[in-house]
């Protein structure tokens, strides 16, 4: 049994944590939240220089060609830091989509730039409230795309987007890659619950596009991309959950009421113990997800949904109970508890919410039982 990260991977973790402590403190997150800049360009540049954006990109496209275990370690640490970066959009979604479905030409155009951080990619699915399905997609497209996507995470700063469009054949959808720097694409910044990650409304008016993968197979491709991304999202959620627990613990230890530290009251101790339990379940499931991603195991859909549900639940619980542990101060703008609470919701709804993934999990178990 060797269900653990290697020494080199743990070294990478230490290095990543140290780097983020120095370069992505809560002050940096706050600056992103309060400032006008859509994201921290300087931090993005440094992160790219360290090779984080190129972790799993093959060497032939100027990547490091490392495994998903290394990327998992980085995701864990970025989540812990609530990093104000378009990492999930560009690395977990756009890069993954290109590697899985891009033509040689599309890969050659974008992967080296994604690896160097020079280009940022994103993924555009949602159009309105409620679950997006092939039946209610209104954006159409093949070699050109028309329609509106809202909200697109990091859509205002991205150079290109993978857009899910309606298609009248196959599974009802296409994946289209669209350069966002063209006049037929209009982007408006929108305000969201988590301004440390910017979002946009993107309108495509016959924008030039190319289909990725098979025509009419875009929905299956989207599910596959989301399955892979779900595991990396869950690592960020688990890292964030741990950070929220530590924040709650440190505050409780130092806060005195009725003559003693509130951390000595069972009401608080049990709350923090419950956070620890949920975080541990999420982390152990993340290990499973990382293994499945690394080995492209047949059970990847089960591992993805399991990991995702655990990550969503742990981060929601830890982020809200962290505020509760802080009492009134936790509810103020001045305190940092809000960063986790905001980010928990962003990560939770971005690639399908809890109930969708619960449903996918049971579907995947049913399919495994049939096989």
């Amino acid at each position, binding site marked *: 049994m060797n269900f653990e990260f290697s020494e080199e991977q743990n070294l990478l973790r230490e290095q990543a944590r140290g780097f983020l402590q120095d370069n992505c403190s809560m002050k940096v997150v706050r600056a992103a939240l309060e400032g006008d800049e859509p994201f921290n360009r300087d931090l993005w540049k440094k992160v790219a220089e360290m090779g984080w954006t190129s972790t799993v990109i093959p060497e032939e496209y100027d990547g490091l060609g490392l495994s998903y275990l290394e990327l998992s370690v980085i995701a864990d640490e970025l989540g812990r830091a609530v990093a104000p970066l378009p990492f999930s959009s560009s690395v977990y979604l756009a890069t993954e989509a290109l590697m899985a479905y891009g033509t040689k030409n599309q890969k050659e155009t974008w992967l080296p730039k994604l690896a160097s951080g020079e280009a940022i990619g994103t993924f555009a699915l949602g159009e309105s409230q409620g679950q997006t399905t092939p039946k209610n997609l209104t954006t159409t497209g093949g070699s050109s795309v028309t329609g509106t996507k809202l909200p697109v995470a990091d859509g205002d700063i991205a150079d290109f987007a993978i857009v899910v469009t309606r298609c009248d054949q196959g599974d009802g959808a296409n994946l289209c890659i669209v350069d966002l720097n063209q006049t037929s694409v209009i982007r408006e910044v929108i305000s969201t619950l988590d301004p440390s990650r910017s979002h946009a409304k993107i309108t495509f008016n016959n924008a030039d596009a190319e289909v990725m993968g098979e025509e009419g197979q875009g929905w299956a491709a989207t599910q596959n991309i989301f399955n892979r991304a779900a595991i990396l999202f869950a690592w960020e959620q688990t890292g964030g959950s741990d950070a929220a627990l530590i924040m709650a613990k440190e505050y409780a230890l130092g806060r005195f009421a009725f003559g003693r530290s509130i951390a000595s009251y069972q009401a608080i101790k049990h709350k923090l113990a419950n956070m620890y339990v949920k975080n541990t379940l999420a982390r152990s499931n993340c*290990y499973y997800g990382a293994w499945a991603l690394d080995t492209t195991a047949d059970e990847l859909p089960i591992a993805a949904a399991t990991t995702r549900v655990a990550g969503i639940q742990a981060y929601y619980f830890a982020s809200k109970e962290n505020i509760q542990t802080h009492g009134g101060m936790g509810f103020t703008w001045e305190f940092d508890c809000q960063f986790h609470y905001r980010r928990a919701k962003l990560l939770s709804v971005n690639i399908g919410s809890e109930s969708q993934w619960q449903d996918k999990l049971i579907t995947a178990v049913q399919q495994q039982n049939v096989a």
Partner: protein
Amino acid sequence: MDFNDSAEEATFRSEAAAWLNANLPSEADLDGLTDMQKAKLWQKRKADAGWACIRWPQEYGGRGANAIEQVILNQEEAKLAAPNVGVFSIGQGMAAPTMQTWATEEQKKRYLPKLASGEEIWCQLFSEPAGGSDLAALRTKAEKDGDDWIINGQKIWTSGAQYSDFGIIVLRTDPNMPKHQGLSYFFLDMKSPGIEIKPIKQMSGASGFNEVYFTDVRVSDAQRLGEVGQGWQVALTTLMNERASIGGGGGAAGFKTAMDLANRINIDDKPAIEDKHVRAQLANWYVQESGLKFTGYRSMTALSKGEIPGPENSIGKLVGAPKSQDLASFAMDLMEQAGIVLDPDGDEMANLFQGTYMSIPGLRIAGGTDEIMANIIAERVLGLPQDVRVDKGIPFTDVPTSN
């Protein structure tokens, strides 16, 4: 990252599997035997060949194996329909480690091999009516009389007292000392005059536990483990091993059984498994079971590397027991009105959920209640301070009690 054995582990696994398969008692071997006789036969056979309590040193009946080898042996044995040897678990899992740490060499040589072979069964006499979660509040007293101590009082929740040969026991030897400092730890012969054992009927109807009454029971001072007044420290050795040996509800209803039920029961004339609410509930239990499973794999990895598993292993019972309770309750709700029907000869699945529903409250309490487990995580894992204790530093006789 992989789930594979190392070369040494694989060799050990095949050796263990080969021995187990070759020596598993046949139906003819077990014909006409009681469960206890079956357990003793299988345990003795394992001990004679060096496959019992393998982590113990050879001179005490083991083979000096490491922790991961024990896990591998357990996994291989679990694959077979071997006789249930649960009756030995308290003696081997809790009494033996305490004896190994605190007994004399002579005592270890006398008692440990027979614990390993199942020839002698031990029980644990800790809890009392006035000492449950607050175990150190126990009041059964021992008074010195020459080279003996004389015991008077009552123990409770003693599993297997009726068939045990020996018991480990914590007693109050000085009520004028503060709570933890007035305790001493002994082992005694369960057939000693003055011991009376009464089974407790549980709400499930089963009787897994006993009350044990002591009236002027004599135990030799030579059977004291640790110094007089050091009983709490000795008890901690036992308790650390108890938490390792009480698991997360094996045999109780789990995800798979609930999924099977949802496949064959209808809601609104369609299989329940198509209902979104049912799917969400099932998914949550799957996620919990998966989290526990892979937490176990992380611990096994630590053992495999010769390290001590991290604190993450402490969540098993705290997650597993409430999960089984909720799952059993949910499954019976799915059965609607029929969920309440008890029929021992009826549907096996209904019996499983009903049985779990009625027995699982005990697992949430045994070996540390959910609340105590949460305290342990908060204090030992997260490093939070202990609660304020009004009984600290005052003589035990001055501590307020419930009666």
